[in-house]
């Protein structure tokens, strides 16, 4: 989505693709985080699940997966169900936006739904002091990293958060597995 204003501003294709690459580096973190849960599934499944991997699909599945609420053979189906529903809704909503988007007014601040979705995702992800420290350090870093070029701020702040979590874990000792 960050590429859309660049495209309308007539940026070069290199800048557009580089921006897409950098801003989506977070997907690599999602991929790494989900990978242990999809370790033993066939390659076709991996391709399908990766294709359907979105911020929302990740947010909705990683907490139950990490908490061990879902058995491994069921995880692929659990993820497929969640991610497919989100993917279909995404496509339908995009079409809707194309046709009636101009009718919705900017004064409604509907873009605020985006941060709200991430807020709804981050709260259950903060489970203890170490994950809290990860969130806090990522948040503080994000305030300072905004100015980094090509949207490098997002991935930088995320990595600072992960390191902050690890450091806190080492200081406190492992609180919960």
């Amino acid at each position: 989505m960050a590429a859309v204003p660049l495209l309308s501003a007539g940026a070069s294709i290199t800048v557009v693709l580089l921006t897409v690459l950098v801003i989506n580096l977070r997907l690599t973190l999602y991929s790494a985080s989900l990978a242990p849960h999809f370790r033993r599934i066939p390659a076709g499944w991996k391709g399908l699940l990766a294709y359907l991997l979105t911020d929302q699909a990740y947010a909705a599945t990683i907490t139950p997966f990490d908490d061990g609420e879902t058995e491994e053979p069921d995880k692929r189906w659990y993820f497929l169900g969640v991610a497919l529903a989100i993917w279909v809704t995404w496509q339908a909503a995009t079409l809707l936006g194309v046709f009636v988007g101009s009718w919705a007014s900017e004064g409604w601040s509907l873009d605020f739904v985006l941060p709200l979705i991430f807020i709804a995702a981050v709260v259950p992800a903060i489970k203890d002091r170490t994950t809290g420290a990860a969130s806090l350090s990522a948040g503080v870093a994000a305030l300072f990293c905004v100015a980094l070029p090509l949207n490098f701020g997002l991935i930088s702040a995320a990595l600072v958060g992960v390191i902050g979590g690890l450091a806190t874990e080492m200081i406190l000792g492992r609180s919960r597995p």
Partner: protein
Amino acid sequence: MSTLTLWLAVAGAGAITFVLRLSFIALLGRIEIPIVLSRALRFVPAAVFTAVVVPLLFYVDGALEVSLGNERLLAGLAAALFAWRTRSVPLTLVGGMLVLWTLQILGQSL
């Protein structure tokens, strides 16, 4: 930008994000990841989601804005409270939007 370049950009962007998403999901099972990395993965959700949200709440038109005049920051904090108390995504979305709209109306009438 010509129509062809536009399609190339869209196709390229799609290919790039697919490779990023597939990366570790495809690799794991063939290679083992170091212990420290697997421990780090536990912090990915909290870190990434916070890194996405914070600039959207604290920055208004490209400038840091920490004040009671920043409606999005206040509505975001309220939404975090809803999310914590209710653990419900729909309630967080509806509650956050209602708080934002209320603050915007109040801000206009002052």
